[in-house]
């Protein structure tokens, strides 16, 4: 069989729009998801048993079920519960933010826990009140330590974003599948789609090791 990549020339713009949708969705969910994850991470390490329990259930559930079912649930069930129609963009954002919140909360929880008790001892020895201890000593270090893993989380989110095609949102995967069906040339189209995802995700994963080497080495955090 012959490969003909020139078919793609007609669809450059469509693919570009699909990619933009994917990137926008990913960017929004990264921001919302990391913020949510940070709060949940704090809740998981808090002294309140109730907070720890509730946040624990949320995290275990979103990490222990396929993202696809989460997406379907939000897309099909949430409108029924809330009584309003949700666009697939909103459904996608809600589902992916909740997922991102769960995985980043684990990242933050690990980094918060990795700050040794000696740091707290030093704070007590200096008479720093708990508020200062947390804001000036613990949190900055926790955030810095979390950065490499957070970057990995972002790449994971970018990959999972392809699932919104299953609820009809016109992201890169959806557009690619449509073109592939229209032109009956799945090899060329899907290969290009895969390459586009790869070209974005691969440098980011390599970037993680760079970040770890540079920033964390400098601060020996």
């Amino acid at each position, binding site marked *: 069989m012959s490969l003909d990549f020139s078919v793609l020339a007609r669809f450059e713009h469509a693919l570009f729009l699909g990619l933009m949708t994917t990137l926008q969705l990913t960017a929004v969910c990264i921001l919302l998801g990391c913020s949510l994850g940070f709060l949940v991470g704090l809740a998981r390490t808090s002294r309140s048993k109730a907070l720890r329990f509730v946040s624990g259930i949320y995290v275990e559930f979103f990490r222990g079920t396929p993202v696809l079912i989460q997406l379907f649930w939000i897309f099909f069930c949430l409108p029924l519960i809330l009584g309003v129609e949700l666009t697939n963009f909103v459904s996608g954002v809600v589902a992916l933010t909740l997922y991102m919140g769960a995985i980043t909360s684990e990242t933050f929880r690990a980094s918060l826990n990795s700050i040794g008790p000696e740091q707290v001892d030093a704070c007590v020895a200096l008479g720093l009140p708990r508020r200062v201890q947390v804001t000036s000593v613990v949190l900055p270090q926790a955030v810095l330590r979390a950065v490499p893993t957070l970057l990995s989380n972002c790449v994971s989110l970018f990959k999972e974003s392809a699932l919104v095609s299953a609820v009809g949102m016109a992201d890169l995967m959806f557009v690619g599948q449509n073109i592939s069906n229209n032109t009956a040339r799945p090899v060329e189209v899907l290969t290009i789609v*895969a390459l586009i995802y790869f070209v974005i995700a691969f440098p980011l994963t390599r970037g993680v090791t760079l970040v770890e080497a540079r920033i964390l080495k400098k601060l020996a955090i």
Partner: protein
Amino acid sequence: MNYTFDFNAVSFAPLLRGLVVSLELTAAANIIGIVAGFGLALLLMSPYRLVRTPFMLFVEFFRCTPAIVQIVWIFYCVPMLFDVFLDPITVGIMALGLNLTAFNAEAYRASIQAVPKEQLDAGIALGLNPLQRVLYIVFPTAFRASVPVLLTNGIVIFQQSALVAIVAIADLMYEGKSLATETYRPIETFTIVALIYFAVSFPVTQIVGLLERGRQLLAS
């Protein structure tokens, strides 16, 4: 909220059928992933760049693209490229198996490289030859270290297996979606499907947690 709950509408038979398919896919993918992943890891650590690079690209490709893209690609393109007919289950096993192989290869590689150099030095000092060092020092340590990651990856594949529903393979997800659309009861159906996935995944993640805590205790 205008919705009458009716959990009786959810008939478990098709869901259980789907679950069996999901579990079969997961088991097959894990067998492939655990065995082939190890072989791939060894290739990744070969001293020859000509050997390392292509396999490294293979691994990176599976790690840096969405699983759904991989599944759809194999589903549509492999029959076309190689002029074969593949039944859907085989496609599913191939896609999930290759994906897991790539991730497991990384896990094996990391755990082999994590064997402390001092232990190897001690092996040399005791007069063990290279093969003995690999068999008695590297393997046991690396394998024990990689078990938690292999289990975790195995359960991730179970969740990724839900994606084969998109290419109409009749797994748990597919049966769930069909049932939800037939009965017009998405909330009950999807909730139960989610709970089934959770019920399978959660115990395994707890076991992994116990294993890791046990190893930390042993190490200290």
